[in-house]
C-alpha cells in the first residue's frame, strides 16, 4: 500500500515537473520573442550586420533551395501524370504543379532547408558567443545583444526567406515544365498557356506570407536556443539540435494553420 502510494506521488510529481518546465520554457520563449520584436522595430539599427545576414541567408541558401524546389516541381509533374494520364493530362499537370509548388512545396521545402542551414548555424554561433562570455562582453561595451546580434538575423530571415521562396516558385514551375515538355512530350506553348491561365495571385501571396512567418520562426528559434545555451561545447550542440528540430516542427504546424486561414476551408 505504502509503496503504491509513493509511486503515485512520484508520478504526480513527475507530471508537475514536466508541466512546470513546459510553462517556464513557453514563458521564456514568449518574453524572448517580445523583446526581439521590440528591438527589431526600435533604433539603433545595425546596417552592416543586417547586410551580412541578408547575404548569408539569401545568397548562400540559394543553391540548396533551388535544387530542392526544382526537383519537387519535377516529381510533382511526374506523379500527376501517372495519376491523371487517363484524363486531360496536359492541363492537369500544369495546374497541379503550379498550385502545389506555390502554395505548399516551395515554402515548406525552402523553410525546412533554411531551418537546417541557417537555424543551426545561428544557434551554434550565438551559443558559442554565450558560453565564451562574448554576449556579456557586448553589453559591457554598451551594445545591446538583442539589437546587435538578434534583430539583424530575424529581420533578414523575414525578408529573405520569401525571396528564396519566390525564386523557388519559379524554379519549381520550370521543373514541372521540363518534365512536361521534354519527358511527357506535352506541347510547350499549351503547357505555358495553361500555367498562365491557372496562375492566381492568391496562391503566390499565401506562399510568400508563409515564407515570411517561417523566416521568423527559423531565425527567432535559432537565436533563442543559442542565447539560452549553457555548459560549453555540449550545450551548444544541444542548442543547435533544438533549434533545427523545434523550427521544423513549428514550420509544419504553422503551415497547416496558415493554410486554414488563407483558404478558409
Amino acid at each position: 500500500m505504502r509503496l503504491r502510494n509513493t509511486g503515485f506521488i512520484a508520478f504526480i510529481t513527475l507530471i508537475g515537473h514536466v508541466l512546470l518546465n513546459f510553462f517556464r520554457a513557453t514563458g521564456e520563449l514568449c518574453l524572448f520573442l517580445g523583446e526581439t520584436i521590440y528591438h527589431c522595430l526600435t533604433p539603433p539599427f545595425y546596417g552592416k550586420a543586417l547586410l551580412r545576414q541578408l547575404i548569408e541567408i539569401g545568397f548562400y541558401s540559394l543553391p540548396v533551395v533551388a535544387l530542392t524546389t526544382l526537383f519537387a516541381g519535377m516529381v510533382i509533374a511526374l506523379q500527376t501524370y501517372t495519376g491523371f494520364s487517363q484524363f486531360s493530362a496536359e492541363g492537369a499537370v500544369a495546374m497541379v504543379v503550379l498550385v502545389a509548388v506555390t502554395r505548399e512545396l516551395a515554402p515548406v521545402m525552402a523553410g525546412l532547408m533554411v531551418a537546417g542551414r541557417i537555424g543551426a548555424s545561428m544557434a551554434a554561433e550565438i551559443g558559442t558567443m554565450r558560453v565564451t562570455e562574448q554576449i556579456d562582453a557586448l553589453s559591457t561595451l554598451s551594445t545591446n545583444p538583442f539589437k546587435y546580434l538578434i534583430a539583424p538575423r530575424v529581420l533578414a530571415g523575414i525578408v529573405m526567406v520569401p525571396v528564396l521562396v519566390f525564386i523557388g516558385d519559379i524554379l519549381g514551375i520550370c521543373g514541372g515544365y521540363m518534365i512536361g515538355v521534354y519527358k511527357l512530350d506535352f506541347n510547350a506553348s499549351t503547357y505555358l498557356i495553361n500555367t498562365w491561365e491557372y496562375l492566381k495571385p492568391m496562391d503566390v501571396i499565401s506562399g510568400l506570407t508563409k515564407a515570411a512567418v517561417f523566416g521568423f520562426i527559423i531565425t527567432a528559434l535559432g537565436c533563442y536556443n543559442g542565447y539560452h545555451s549553457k555548459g560549453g561545447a555540449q550545450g551548444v550542440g544541444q542548442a543547435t539540435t533544438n533549434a533545427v528540430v523545434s523550427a521544423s516542427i513549428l514550420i509544419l504546424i504553422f503551415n497547416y494553420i496558415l493554410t486554414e486561414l488563407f483558404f478558409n476551408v
Partner: protein
Amino acid sequence: MVFFKTQEETLLPKIRLSHLQKAFGHKKVLAGVDLDVYPGESLVIIGGSGTGKSVTLKCILGLLTPDSGKIEIDGQDIATLPRKEREKATAHIGMLFQNAALFDSLSVWENVAFALLQNKKTSRTEAKKLALQKLAQVGLKKDVADLYPADLSGGMKKRVGLARAIATNPDIIFFDEPTTGLDPIMSDVINDLIVSTVKNLGATALTITHDMKSARKIADRIAMLHEGKIIWMGTVKELDKTKNPYVKQFIAGSAEGPIKMEIKADKA
C-alpha cells in the same frame, strides 16, 4: 591613495555593495558581500578559486541578478533604476573578462575599437589609430592588429581584452585576473599600465587577482573574499602585519591553515 577613516566616511563611494547575496540553485556563492570602492581608488579582491569573485563583478555589471542586497554606483541603487538608466550607469564600466571574451568574428583591432566603432562618432581610420595606440600600451605590435582572436596565444588574448577594456577611457574599470597567463615581465608591464590608468585617467579600478606580487603593486586597498563574504580589508602595509589567519595563509600560499581545500571526496 590611502584614505583616513574620517575622509572615508565623508567621501561618497563610487561603488557600494551592501549585503549582496547570490545563489545558483542550492549553491550559495555570495553570502552577503559588503564593499565600498572609493573614486580614484584601486581595490584588489583576493580569494580562493571559486569563491565568487567573478560573480561579484558580473552582479555589479548587471550580467547576473543578485538574489538580494543593494548595488549602488555613484550613490544610485542600480536595481531601482529603469532599464535605460541602468544601462547608462553600467555603460561607463570597462571590463576585462577572465577569459578575455574577444569577439572571434572581428579582427584584433576591431575588438579593441569595438565601442568606438559602434557609437559611430569616430571614423574607422581614427578608431584604428586609437586601437593601435592601446595595443602598443599593452605591449602588442602593429602586426597583431589584423589577426583574429583564434590566432593569438592566451596571454595575447588577455592583453587584447585589456586594451579593449580601457579603449573608451571608462571611469570604472574591472580587471578579472589581468596577469594570469602572462610571463613575469609582461605581468609587470600590465601592473604598471593598470597603475597609470588609474592615476592618469583618475579611474576607479576593481581588480581580481591571485598574483600577490601584482596585488601589492596595484592595490590601494586589498579585500579578501572567503565563503561568500569579505573577511578582511586593508592596505598593503596592513596586509603584512595582519594576524588574520585566513589572509596569512593565503599570502603565504600554504596548504596548512584555516582555509580547507576540499580535496577529499565528501562522505556520502
